[in-house]
Structures are given as structure tokens and as C-alpha cells.
């Protein structure tokens, strides 16, 4: 049933596809973390944006990621925006998780004591300096675990990109399967890969947490 020589044969192909999956994850997450922060900051800095942003966030969180991927890839061209599959997929992942990340950042900002903002006002700091030097450095460390969870969740959703034929792990495994009529090894290997990578990321996130907690804080 399980053929090790077949495993060795397809491993290089899958390894190459794994790189695509990891790329999609990293780019998608950088996008999510950045855009999420921008959304959360905009809400505080420009109160008039709060309502439109919460509507947008709700819209994104309440519709399936797969639909958003299809929307960017298949519907956008009719508005004159044509994206290649990888770009559309990564963009959808990034935007989808930005909605979740923005809520995480928001909870981080909400946890900053009002007195910190007031001290910034009393010292006449600009809003930019207030965020950069006072609020963000205090708000981020406690939310690293939550952001880390979303990194792992985003990573585990990259197989959805196979739906628009991005040659990531899942799509590659499917192709191998349809060409050789053997699914056991490729699909199992994909599963093992995700398991291994998720465990590795979880360990890394814990290391980052420990690093951040080492600094004395109140």
C-alpha cells in the first residue's frame, strides 16, 4: 500500500510546492499584520472611519475565504483588474486575515490604560509619536500569541489556493494523484508537512513570546 520509492520520487516536487505554500503564507501574513494594524490605527486616529471599517471587517469575517479568493480571481477581471492566481490568492489571504488581525490589535490598544494616553497628551507628544513610541510597544507584546494563532491558521488555509490552480502543496499533490492514480502518499505527505510546519511555528511563537516577556513591564 505505502510505497517508499514513490515517496522519494515525489518528494522533490512536493518540496518545491511547499516553498510556494510558505511564500504565500509569509507574504499573506505580512499583508494581514500590516493592513490589520493600519485598520486598527485608523479607527482610533480618525473616529469617522470607525463605522465603515467595522462594516468592512464584519463583511470580510462573515464570508468564506474561498468566495473572496474566487471574487478576486474571477470577478475582478470584469472590472478591468486581472491578477495572476498567486497574487489574487495571497491578496485574498492577506485581506481576510487583516480583518481578524485588526480586531486583535484593537483589543491590544483597548488594554492600554487611559493614563498612558493622557500622559502623552500632557507631554504634548504628537499622535504619531504617541503610537510609535508609547502605545504600539506596549500593545503588541500581549497580542503576539493571538497574532501567532492567525499565522498558523492562515498557513493551514493556503490549500484553498488550489481552487484557483496555484501550484502550492495541495494542488501539486492533486496533480500527482491524478497523473499516477496514487493519492495515499502525496496527500499523507502534505498532511505531515502541515503538521510539522505548524508545530515549528508554534515553537517559534512561544520563543518570541518569551523574548518579549523578558523585558520588565508593569
Amino acid at each position: 500500500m505505502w510505497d517508499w520509492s514513490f515517496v522519494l520520487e515525489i518528494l522533490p516536487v512536493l518540496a518545491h510546492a511547499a516553498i510556494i505554500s510558505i511564500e504565500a503564507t509569509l507574504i499573506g501574513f505580512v499583508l494581514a499584520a500590516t493592513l490589520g494594524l493600519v485598520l486598527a490605527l485608523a479607527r482610533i486616529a480618525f473616529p469617522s472611519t470607525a463605522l465603515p471599517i467595522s462594516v468592512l471587517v464584519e463583511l470580510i469575517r462573515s464570508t468564506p475565504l474561498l468566495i473572496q479568493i474566487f471574487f478576486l480571481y474571477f470577478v475582478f477581471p470584469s472590472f478591468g483588474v486581472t491578477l495572476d492566481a498567486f497574487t489574487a490568492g495571497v491578496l485574498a489571504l492577506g485581506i481576510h486575515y487583516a480583518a481578524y488581525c485588526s480586531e486583535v490589535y484593537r483589543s491590544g490598544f483597548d488594554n492600554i490604560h487611559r493614563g498612558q494616553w493622557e500622559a502623552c497628551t500632557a507631554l504634548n507628544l504628537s499622535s504619531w509619536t504617541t503610537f510609535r513610541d508609547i502605545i504600539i510597544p506596549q500593545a503588541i507584546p500581549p497580542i503576539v500569541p493571538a497574532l501567532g494563532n492567525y499565522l498558523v491558521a492562515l498557513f493551514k488555509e493556503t490549500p484553498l489556493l488550489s481552487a484557483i490552480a496555484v501550484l502550492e502543496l495541495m494542488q501539486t499533490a492533486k496533480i500527482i494523484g491524478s497523473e499516477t492514480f496514487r493519492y495515499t502518499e502525496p496527500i499523507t505527505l502534505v498532511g505531515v508537512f502541515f503538521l510539522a510546519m505548524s508545530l515549528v511555528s508554534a515553537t517559534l511563537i512561544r520563543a518570541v513570546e518569551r523574548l518579549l516577556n523578558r523585558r520588565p513591564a508593569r
Partner: protein
Amino acid sequence: MTDKPIVRFDKVSKRYGPLTVLDSLELDIFRGEKVAIIGPSGSGKTTVLRMLMTLETIDDGVIWVDGEPLTHMERNGKLVRADQAHIRKIRARIGMVFQSFNLFPHMTAMANCIEAPMTVLGMKRQDAEARAADLLDMVGLAQKKEHYPSQLSGGQQQRVAIARALAMRPKIMLFDEVTSALDPELVGEVLQVIRKLGSEHDLTMLMVTHQMGFAKEFADRICFFYQGKICEQGHPKEFFGSPKNDRTKQFLHAVLEAG
């Protein structure tokens, strides 16, 4: 007192919904004056400081600082609500120390004291550090420069907060119940620093306090607030010696009773 006031509350009102916290307040404070604001809780005394620091907006009236409007600005000969740039310009003359210290917990005492001078005043790190070192020395914390707030006692934290506010060279210092969060044995060291400030610097000081003894000895004037109005004010000698208003008498009686 024919001098121009450095702070003027001109018919200033503050309301939270149906609740009037301050009712058409008129109060002039003169250069170098030390004013202690006392009164029962909910009398609006802390709100006075918070409005002056622009932590609260006002609903009516105008606050003037050093002859210029703080809450408003002149446009075509009329006073309109101040924009952020104007507020920042005028606010630079005011510093504040809070009941709960509000030090930045992720920064050392030194970093707390150089943050604003560097980012707001554009001072070079070296100059800002030299100034901060002098101030930390003045508040008796020369040895604690590299300590984080969590490594300092409440009294020490509050003294860092005073140094941090002074590093911006304000003309007016606001003290909002600065010893209320401290253990009794730490109150003295903070009051000692404020005393020193009063004698060595030409600062105008406004303090909300429950330390009657300190107010009596330190202030030039006591303002007693009751239900959003100044009920009685005067030189500490007269104020504590022969209060005229019944509410003042009641309050002083209650406070002195409690020790």
C-alpha cells in the same frame, strides 16, 4: 495682583449629559502663584486641571493661558474652537503630574524623561539626557536613571513623573492628587520635591490635594470647590483660620476630624 493672569478661566462650564460638573467657572491664576484646590469628591476640582491640560473639552467659556486662548483661537477677529496645532502650541506651556503616575512602563526613568524633549522639542539625545540627569538628580533619583518603573517604589515613580513633566520646561505645573495613590510613608518624599520646586523655580502651580497640612503651609491661595463652583477662596491663613462659608466649615470639620 494687578498683574495679567497666566491662567484665566472665563465662564467655563463642563457638563456630562445632564450633570453639570463645572458651572460658569471664573478663576484667575497669577504668575508664580501656588494654588491649592480642595473640595469634596465630585466637586469638579480635578476637572479644572484636566480641562487646563486639554484632557477634557469644555462646553462653554474660554480658557486663557498667558494672554492667549487655549481652547479657542482667533480667526477674523472672532474666537473659534482651537484646532489641534493651536492646542499643541499653547499646551506646551503646561505640564501635569497624575495621581497614578502614568509613567511609560516599557521605558527606563531616563527614557521617560527624554522622550518628549527629543520628539517634541527636537532636542539632541545628549542634551536631553543632560537635562533629564539634572532633573532626576533634583528629585533625588540620580542612582535610579536606568531603572524601569516596575523596579521603583510609588514615591520614586511619582518623582520620576515630576522630573519628566519638568523636562518640557512648562511655566505652569498641574498636580492632580499626586500623593493619593501612595503609601503614607512615601507621601513625604514627594511633597518634599514639590516644596523644593516651589522655592527654587519660578513656576505657577495648581494642585488638587487632600493634604490639608501641605496646602496650608505651601499654597498662596486655597480654592474650595463645591458642586461645580468655587465656594470660598483665600489665603490659607484666613481660609483655615476663619472660614466664612458654612459648607467650607463643614468640609474642614469633616476632613480635620478624619485626620
